[in-house]
């Protein structure tokens, strides 16, 4: 029974493929045929359940499809450019997030200089506290930017063309770049903090600079990681 059904299914599929022989070989076209097949199968089931002969039912089902010329013509054409699909509200939100983030970065700089100015009264500890506070302040905008990068609408492919493929790839890699930038800025700020902390606490200035080399290696490792992820599967 089930095997018989599969055969009928394949037969109807072939009939549909014949009807769509002149249609563009796009995803939209393929989805349309898939949709048609599902509905045809259901119609077939109903007809045979009502006692129609399988042969006759297949003919009736295929006949009920009708003239597909107009349908094929309504399928999206291959070329044509579709821009980013995102509304003004989202754009405003994104701009607001970036603005606040930049403001917080500036605040961090102010905190840093305040700490430096206060060293005259409280000694080098004020300098240290200033740096730590500045870095803590930096964490917030960095997180905001990373989050924003994720919220940035993914480029949705409207048509199956090379141009569209390229645009999607371009969009994806721009996003990766943005995230990578955020990670790298976070890494280097942290490096400075660790360097300062360790140096002030141990006084081993002659060796602590090694931290920068370690961070350099770390960054290369992160970039490599992203590169590997970007490779086509």
């Amino acid at each position, binding site marked *: 029974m089930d095997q018989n059904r599969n055969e009928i299914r394949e037969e109807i599929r072939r009939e549909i493929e014949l009807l769509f022989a002149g249609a563009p070989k796009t995803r939209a076209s393929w989805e349309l045929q*898939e*949709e048609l097949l*599902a*509905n*045809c199968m259901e119609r077939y089931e109903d007809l045979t359940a009502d006692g129609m002969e399988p042969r006759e039912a297949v003919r009736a089902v295929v006949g*009920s499809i*009708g003239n597909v010329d*107009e349908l094929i013509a309504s*399928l999206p054409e291959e070329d044509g450019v579709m821009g980013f699909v995102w509304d003004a509200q989202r754009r405003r939100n994104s701009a607001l997030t970036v603005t606040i983030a930049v403001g917080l970065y500036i605040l961090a700089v102010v905190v840093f200089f305040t700490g430096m100015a206060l060293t005259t009264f409280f000694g080098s500890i004020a300098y240290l506290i200033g740096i730590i506070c500045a870095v803590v302040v930096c964490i917030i905008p960095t997180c905001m930017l990373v989050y924003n990068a994720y919220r940035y609408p993914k480029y949705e492919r409207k048509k199956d063309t090379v141009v569209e493929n390229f645009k999607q790839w371009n969009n994806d890699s721009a996003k990766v770049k943005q995230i990578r930038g955020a990670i790298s800025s976070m890494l280097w700020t942290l490096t400075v903090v660790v360097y300062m902390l360790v140096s002030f606490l141990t006084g081993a200035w002659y060796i602590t600079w090694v931290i920068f080399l370690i961070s350099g290696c770390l960054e290369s490792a992160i970039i490599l990681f992203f590169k590997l992820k970007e490779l086509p599967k």
Partner: protein
Amino acid sequence: MSITFDLIRGHTDAIILSYLCDGDSYGYQINKDIMKATDNQFELKEATLYTAFRRLEQTGLIQSYWGNEAVGARRRYYTITDAGRDAYTGLKQEWQHSKVILDKLLT
């Protein structure tokens, strides 16, 4: 009969929107509903139905999503958007208007 068919076919969009106002549906289901409502007197050709679906989807009046049927082919369901509801109200009013005029002309 063929005049009736053409006349009704000219309102395919409105008919589809009308059914989707009551809830999400898919191609064959809508056709079945049409047949049931008209006592098998009227049925849309598959091609006409899907051309209308594409047109409505491209103008943003309906949206589609694939169902997750465990067995058999996957159905593609359609759902009406707010713009679609507005359009339906407009189309219905237009039809009422045409009906009044036709009734006056065909006496």
